[in-house]
C-alpha cells in the first residue's frame, strides 16, 4: 500500500472528512503533505501524528511520558524495520520480536490503543495476509493482536480481513 493511500485510510478512521492531497518524494516515495497554515510536512509517521492532533485525538499518541515515548518508538520501528528492507528473513525477525514483545500485552503500549497499533497494523497487513496457518500459530501473540486490531471499529476499512483459526492445529510447533 502506498504511503499516500495509507494516510487516506488513516484520515477516514480518524473521522477526518477533509481529505488531504499527498505528493510523494524520492525513490522511496516518502509522502509529503502541503498544509495550508505552514510549511509542508514530510514522512509517514510525522504526518500521521499531525493528523491525529488535527482530529483532536491526542490520546492516540499516548497520555503519559512513557506511553508517548513507546508510541514513537514503534512508529520508528514501523518505518525503519517493517518498511525498510523486506526480505522474508527480515520480516520473520520482525514477527519474532513482536511476538515476544506482545506476549503480555493487548496493545503495543500495554493497555491502550494508539497510533502505533494502527500504523503497525497497516504496515504488516501485506505480510500477515500471506502467512500460512502454521506460521500464524507460530506467531501466536502477533496473530491475537492483529486479529484484535482488525476488528477495532473503523480501522480495517477496505483491507481484507485475515482469518485466524481459534483452535491450535500444530500443538507441537515451536
Amino acid at each position, binding site marked *: 500500500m502506498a504511503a499516500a493511500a495509507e494516510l487516506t485510510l488513516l484520515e477516514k478512521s480518524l473521522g477526518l472528512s477533509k481529505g488531504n492531497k499527498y505528493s510523494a518524494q524520492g525513490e522511496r516515495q516518502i509522502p509529503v503533505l502541503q498544509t495550508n497554515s505552514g510549511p509542508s510536512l514530510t*514522512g509517514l509517521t510525522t504526518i500521521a*501524528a499531525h493528523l491525529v492532533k488535527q482530529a483532536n485525538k491526542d490520546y492516540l499518541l499516548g497520555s503519559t*511520558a512513557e506511553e*508517548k*515515548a513507546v508510541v514513537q518508538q514503534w512508529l520508528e520501528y514501523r518505518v525503519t524495520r517493517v518498511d525498510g528492507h523486506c526480505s522474508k528473513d527480515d520480516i520473520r525477525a520482525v514477527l519474532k520480536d513482536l511476538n515476544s*514483545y506482545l506476549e503480555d500485552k493487548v496493545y503495543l503500549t500495554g493497555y491502550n490503543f494508539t497510533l502505533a497499533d494502527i500504523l503497525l497494523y497497516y504496515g504488516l497487513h501485506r505480510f500477515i495476509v500471506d502467512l500460512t496457518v502454521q506460521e500464524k500459530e507460530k506467531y501466536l501473540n502477533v496473530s491475537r493482536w492483529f486479529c484484535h486490531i482488525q476488528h477495532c471499529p473503523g480501522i480495517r476499512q477496505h483491507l481484507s480481513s485475515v482469518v485466524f483459526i481459534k483452535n491450535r492445529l500444530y500443538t507441537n510447533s515451536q
Partner: protein
Amino acid sequence: MRLFVSEGAPGSLPVLAAAGRAQRRAELLISTVGPEECVVPFLTWPKAPVLQLDSGNYLFSTSAICRYFFLLSGWEQDDLTNQWLEWEATELQPALSTALYYLVVQGKKGEDVLGPVRRALMHIDHSLSRRSSPFLAGETESLADIVLWGALYPLLQDPSYLPEELGALHSWFQTLSSQEPCQRAAETVLKRQGVLALRPYLQKQPQPSSLEGRVVSNEPEEEELATLSEEEIAVAVAAWEKGPESLPPLRPQQNPVLPVAGERNVLITSALPYVNNVPHLGNIIGCVLSADVFARYSRLRQWNTLYLCGTDEYGTATETKALEEGLTPQEICDKYHIIHADIYRWFNISFDFFGRTTTPQQTKITQDIFQRLLARGFVLQDTVEQLRCEHCARFLADRFVEGVCPFCGYEEARGDQCDKCGKLINAIELKKPQCKVCRSCPVVRSSQHLFLDLPKLGARVEEWLERTLPGSDWTPNARFITRSWLRDGLKPRCITRDLKWGTPVPLEGFEDKVFYVWFDATIGYLSITANYTDQWEKWWKNPEQVNLYQFMAKDNVPFHGIVFPSSALGAEDNYTLVSHLIATEYLNYEDGKFSKSRGVGVFGDMAQDTGIPADIWRFYLLYIRPEGQDSAFSWTDMLFKNNSELLNNLGNFVNRAGMFVSKFFGGFVPEMVLTSDDQRLLTHVTLELQHYHQLLEKVRIRDALRSVLTISRHGNQYIQVNEPWKRIRGGEADRQRAGTVTGLAVNIAALLSVMLQPYMPTVSATIQAQLQLPPPACSILPTSFLCTLPAGHQIGTVSPLFQKLENEQIESLKQRFSGGQLEESLALKAKASPKTAAGPEQVQALREEVAKQGDTVRELKAQKADKNQIAAQVAKLLDLKKQLALAEGKPLGTPKGKKK
C-alpha cells in the same frame, strides 16, 4: 530507570546528552554491557543503548529514549521536531552508519567516508540556512538538535568531515558542541580518543545493510584483526623505536606510603575477612585477589598506591569459636590471623600492610566517630527485642539464628539477611527460628540499644552519591544495590550488641555492651592504616587528594556504600569516602555453593596442598572472576584453561621466543629490520595493550586478562607464519628475516611479562629473569609497546613456564573437594581439641540430611521416576552416609574409586 550502554556505542551520545539536557542524569542507573549482549528480552538482535523504565518496559530506540527524557521534563515535540526525528531514523542513520563503518572499521578516509553522508549533511545545512534559524526546529533548541548532534558528533568532531562550505551546519554544530550536556556526553563516550573510541562496538556490529552485497570479497579471511590506519601504524612504530629511554623514571619506594600533592594517590582496600573462617576461593577472588590485581596494576602505572587489608576480629562468632576450641577470643584471633596472613602470602597478595581490628587504634577511632555522631544528634536510643537462646544462655547474634525467610519462605535464611531473596531481615521476624549451635528455639527478650539515625543522614548520603557516582567506576551491582537501599528508605540501624568481645561503647549505661561489628568493621580500614602509619589521617581525611577504591563481594555493598559513608558524613570530620566501589558477584563451586559445614569447595589453606602453583590458581580465579554475573569454579574447566591458555598459548609463545634467541643467536637479541607486516603486528599489539589499559582503569579485571592472551595468540600466529626455524638455515635475507621475527617475538614476550604481573606475579618474574629484562622495564607498564630488548641484549636461560594438568590428577582433586574434606577439617579439629571427635551439631546435621535424602529417594522410587534421576539421588545419599560415618568416627568400607 536503568540505562544499558555499551562501550563505544554511538547511540550513547545523544542519549547522555539528552539526559543531561533534561536533567535526568542523576536518575539513571548505568550498566555497561558487551557489544553483542541482548539486553531487551523481546529483541532477537543486540541493541545499545537501551533504557529500562521503572515499569519494566524497555525503550530500545535511541530517539525514543531521548524523547522520553524530554517528555519527563514536560517538553513536548511539535511536527517539525517529529519530522527531523523521522528523517534521522530513515535517512541519516543508514548513511551515517555506512560512513562510520568505512572510517572506523575499514580504516578508509576522505571522500570514501564523506561520500555516503554528503547529501544528508547538505540537507541539514540547507534547512538551517533557508529558515535562517539557529536551531533545527526554530529559534530555540529542541529534541531534534540533540538527537542529530549526537548522531553526527563522532564524524563531525573531526574537522575534515565537516565541509567548510556548509557554514550553517558548521555554526549549528559548534553551538551545540559547546554546551555542557553535550560536552559531557562526548567526553564520556569518546574519551578524548575521537572516533576510534567507537571501534570496540562497531566492529562487533553487522555490516550496515546498505553495504551488503557490495563488499563481496573472494580474498581469504585474513584474520579477525581490525583494519589499521596509516596514522596508527606510524604512531606505534615511533613509540617502539624510542625504546625504554622513553619510560619515566622509576618512583622511589617509600615507607610509609603517604599521599603526595599533585600525584594520583590510590588507596585500595579489600573487604576485611572474618577471622574465624578460613576463606574459600570465592572470598579470595571477591576481594583480596581482585584488589591485589588492581594494586599491582596501579603500581605499574607508577601511581602512588597503598593497599591495605586485615582480619575483622570482633563479634559473637569469635566468642563462640573460642568456646569451641577452649581458648580466649584473643587467642583465637591471634591463631587465625596468622592462618589468614599465611594464606594470602601463599597467594602472593601484595598488601602494603595486613592488619587486624582488635587494636587500641580501633577503639580510639571508633569511639571518636561515635562521640561525634552522638554530639551531632545522629544516635538514637531504643529498646530492642532480641532472640536469646536459653540453652546456650546468651543473646544470639544474627548469624547464629536460622529460620524461614518472612519474605520469600526460603528455609535457611540467616538472622540478618536472606541468601535467596537478598532482603535484610530482623532476626525476630524469622519464622521458626533456631539457634544454629544447639538447634533449640530461642525466645524474645528486650534490651536497651543505640541506633544510628540513618533517615536523618539519608539526604547527605544521597547528595554525596549524586556527586560521586556519575563518571566513577562503581560496578553496576554496587550502584544498583545502593540505589535500591535509598529507594526503599533508610531505617535506623542498631549499632550496639550485648557482647563482651568488641569495641566498648563509651556511654553511661552501656558499659556491658560493645559496638556491633558492622558499625566498627568498616572503621577497621582506618585503624589498620593508623597501625601502619601515625600519619593515617593524610589518607583518610583527605578526600581531595585520595582516590579510594574498595573491593568486596556484593553482599558487602550496603555497609560500604551507605552505612559507613553515613557515619563518616555525620561525624563531619572531612573523611575520605569511597570513590570507586568494586563489587563482584558470587563464585559458585562446580554446580553448588561453597559450604564450610558440608566441606564442599576449596578453601584457602587447602589450595596449597593440591600441588598446583599459586599463580595457576590466581590465573584461573581471575579468568572466571564473577564480574557482572555469577560464575562457577570447575575443576575440568581449570584443567582445560591451564592446558590451552597457559601451556599451549602463553607458555608456548614465551618459551619459543626465548628459545629462538638462545638457539639461533647465541642468547643475544638479533638485529630487527621491520617490514610493513611487522609494523602492523606491532600496531595490533599496541592497540591491544591500550585496550588492556582502558579495561583495567575501569577495573574490568577479567576482561583485561583476555587482552594478554590475545597478544600472545597474535605472537604465536606470527611465529607460525614466518617460520624463523626454517629461515635461519636459508640465505642472508632469510636469516635476517628470522632475526627480525625472533627479535620482535621476544620483545612481545617481554611486554607480556609486564602485563601479566598483576595476574601472575611469579610467572612474570620468571619470564623477566629468563629474558634478563632491565629493571625499569619490569616495573613500569607504558601505554605503547616499546622495544625493551634492543639488538645485542643478552638473555638468560630459558625454560618452560607451565606444567600440564592431567585428567587423573584433576579427577582425584575433584573427588577430594566434593564434600570429602570434612575428613580433613575434622582432622584439623581433632588436632586443635583432642577430646571432641566431631562436633555433635555436625553429626546431627548430617543425620538429618541422610534422613531427608532417604525420603527423597523413596519418594522418587514410589513415583517410578526416571532411572537416571533416581541413580543420582541414590549417589547423593551414599555420599552423605559416608560423610556421616566419617563424622561419627566409624570405619569406612573400601572406597570404590579408582586408585592411581
